[in-house]
């Protein structure tokens, strides 16, 4: 009697153990770490869920978020900035754009299937947007003009337009493109080297003297495009 009772208890215990194994599939949280989040606005999206990623109090630290609902074993995920299709568009932080880091070991795919790896971990890194700093050079006839934006980025050499038949400089306007400037950064364009026989002066930019800040107004205008480098012949 006692023997058969023990056997029954054992069978019951075994059944309970099996039941606990078979109940539903394993689920996986979707973990995301985002570096260099300086402004609010980033929304990441996958499996019909959204999660907002906002800067922390210490902006040098990465921001860790987990999507509200876990996904089941075998379910596919694809974490992208909300609205992004084929790496185009998406809901980014203000003044920033985010992408998958290029450095190992953070250069992981942002999509996969739950259970492929022990843990779902997605990385993004955000960078400050840059905007064009551009305009024109007028009256340029001499050679050797070099422009600088302080010590920032490379200098830009500008050559005069030459007549197609005579090869003489025409003095026609030349489009000018300096290196792009990051949001929030200052710029100040100067003439590093004057062209032969001419003197050029810089105008335009937010302050009228080729200087300014790549601020909200400049961002809204998609950069600064009103630089004018006016060149005139030196008095004989």
């Amino acid at each position, binding site marked *: 009697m006692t023997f058969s009772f023990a056997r029954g208890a054992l069978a019951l215990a075994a059944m309970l153990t099996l039941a606990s194994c078979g109940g539903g599939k394993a689920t996986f949280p979707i973990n995301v770490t985002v570096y260099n989040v300086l402004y609010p606005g980033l929304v990441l999206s996958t499996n019909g869920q959204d999660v907002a990623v906002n800067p922390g109090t210490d902006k040098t630290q990465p921001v860790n978020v987990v999507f509200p609902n876990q996904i089941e074993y075998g379910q596919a995920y694809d974490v992208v900035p909300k609205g992004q299709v084929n790496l185009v568009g998406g809901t980014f932080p203000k003044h920033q754009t985010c992408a998958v880091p290029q450095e190992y070991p953070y250069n992981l795919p942002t999509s996969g299937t739950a259970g492929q790896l022990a843990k779902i971990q997605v990385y993004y890194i955000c960078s400050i947007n840059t905007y064009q700093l551009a305009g024109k050079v007028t009256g340029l006839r001499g050679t050797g003009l070099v422009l600088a*934006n302080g*010590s*920032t*980025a490379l200098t830009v050499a500008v050559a005069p337009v030459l007549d197609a038949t005579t090869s003489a400089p025409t003095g026609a306007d030349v489009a000018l493109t300096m290196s792009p400037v990051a949001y929030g950064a*200052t710029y100040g364009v*100067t003439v*590093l080297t*004057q062209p032969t026989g001419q003197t050029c002066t810089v105008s335009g930019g937010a*302050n009228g003297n080729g200087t300014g800040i790549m601020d909200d107004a400049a961002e809204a205008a998609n950069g600064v495009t009103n630089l004018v480098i006016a060149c005139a012949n030196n008095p004989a």
Partner: protein
Amino acid sequence: MKSSILRAGVALACALGLAACGGGDGDQYLTGTIESGVTKDGLVLTNNGGDDLAVPANATGFQFSKRISTDDQFNIQVKSYPSNVKTCTIVNGSARANYYTIAQIRMSCEIKTHKLVIAINGLTTNGLILVNGTDKQTIAANETSREIAPVYEDGAYGITVLQQPTGQTCRVSGGSSGNGSGIMGSTDLVNSVVVTCS
């Protein structure tokens, strides 16, 4: 008799085989990539203290003239630097040669920087902001000089006024171009760029 001829033949074949391997030129070129900082002539690299290799300005890679063999030890070092370079770092520059190790050699050089101190004359009010590109400097009333972020040797600088001080107008002059901009030389640039306020 027959066997002794065969033996000699084998010995000869062995000797030839060894000679082919042991000859001065190996089967692999010793190359590396240059990531940054070589903007001037003057860089000379050595391998195991010899085989001097002059690397020209703006090179993105180097290749020693002598080939090396698999398992040869190589040790790449800098014999002389371009005049504007502070130091160079070689990554994976010493190892035994094989197809993996000789594909891992990288080098980057750090360009010297020098101080840039702006002289300020006649400033009696607050509000002056000077910029050197993205380097923003807010200058208080009565300051007579300001050291800004260091500038790379042979690199450009250009000081401009982002914001004039209250009730005053400041002009920038000096520098090697005369208008507050120029190219940084091989020494600190102190009081060459002048801001005059009135």
